């Protein structure tokens, strides 16, 4: 899979879920790509570098989201 194709797949899937969810675990993204975690990580990391995804962290856990979506509200279980 090419980077572009992977990015499209993830962005599309995440946009679809935006109404209910704005933050995703790494494994959710790997599943979207239907890949094992290690190869999936290369694509996902590149998406962060390309500003297509951003990290969210509670301090103990990390999640990924589309830039600017959800913000704090999701963490407080308000949306």
């Amino acid at each position, binding site marked *: 899979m090419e980077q572009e194709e992977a990015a499209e797949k993830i962005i599309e899937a995440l946009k679809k879920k935006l109404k209910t969810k704005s933050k995703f675990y790494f494994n959710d993204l790997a599943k979207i790509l239907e890949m094992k975690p290690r190869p999936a*990580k290369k694509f996902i990391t590149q998406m962060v570098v390309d500003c297509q995804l951003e990290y969210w962290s509670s301090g103990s856990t*990390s999640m990924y989201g589309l830039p600017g979506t959800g913000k704090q509200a999701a963490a407080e279980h308000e949306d």
Partner: protein
Amino acid sequence: MAKHETPLLDQLESGPWPSFVSDLKQEAEKRAKNEAGLELQIPVDVVDDLLGVLELSFKHGKTHWKHGGIVGVFGYGGGVIGRYCDQPEMFPGVAHFHTVRVAQPAGKYYTTKYLKELCDLWDFRGSGITNMHGSTGDIILIGTTTPQLEEIFYEMSHNMDQDLGGSGSNLRTPADCIGQSRCEYACYDTQDICHHLTIEYQDELHRPAFPYKFKFKFDGCPNCCVASIARSDLSFIGTWKDDIRIDQEAVAGYVGGEFLPNGGAHAGRDWGAFDIQKEVVDLCPTGCMKYEGKKLQINTRECTRCMHCINVMPRALRIGQETGCSILAGAKAPILDGAQMGSLLVPFVEVNPDNDYQAIKDVIEPIWDWWMEEGKNRERLGELIKRQGFQRLLEATGIEPVPQHVKEPRTNPYIFWKEEEVEGGWTRDIDEFRKDHKR
């Protein structure tokens, strides 16, 4: 005059111990005076507001910090933990109050010059409050605002040769005991491997792809000064294969009162004459020592390397010479399911810097692959081992079951044979069987 009244916090200062409240008040005052004439980059009253919000939390019996946030430095998924206050109007100084984790050096050796630079940077761009060190081992810088993060990171990475530590679903900053730099008990160079693996696994440290946090800790010997056995998903504890080296003359020195036991620790009180039988031989957990005819003997086959005898008589007893480490897996703190200690996975492995610790990496990497694939979100390695069984861990790492894996026979862990491992498999000749066994 303090900005906020803090009667509940003030009460904490009345106890017999040094109080963080007094420390914070001192820092608040220092910032207000600003004798160094710094151009403070975050609110001057950040520490006053921290005291204020803490007082309010005590009053309300609940926290006024929000949960997590989207902050970090570009390209890093860890190292910065976003903290926002949910009463920003009342406490504007801590509206943003992010934590920065800074990777501590192996063995936590610093030069005073470095510490001064770090504190200067933090006075200038942060609250001035530090936590040396957090549970993971990192230097923790507590409280700054979002615009300061990249500035702090630039300064550290370009001018101080300093990286951020781990947080979130990452490899956390590996931590070690002082090891061979100061300690004669060290069975391997904890600082070297700690540093080496920190550099080697940068990607795991900074870019989260694990189900949850993952910690390495390195103890040079079973005294476990960094408590790796209780606090790390993979714990590396120094050990040895051959005999404890005994200097019988020095043993006689202890018995005769020439040397103080325990290196003179606990010597503030008169405990009576040293009794080698009572204080060493009888306390050996495996009962593998004897002291007869003024000669101390150890049955190495039975010794578990608990360190007791060596700690009591360090001049007389020394660790063996064929040294390496044991690897234990799955310890964690009590968030889910209660606290868990590490389970022995590799009884002995060489710790060899000449081949970049390959034998150890060969254990680490398959564990990660297994956990990344099978671990549920927010499931620690120790919980996965419990859920799928220790045997799955052995399969994932290709490690053969050995007696040391069995804590209590037939209970934990229970190793099952598979059909292909048994000669002839599960099929049997029923007529043959019935010759000896009636229906």
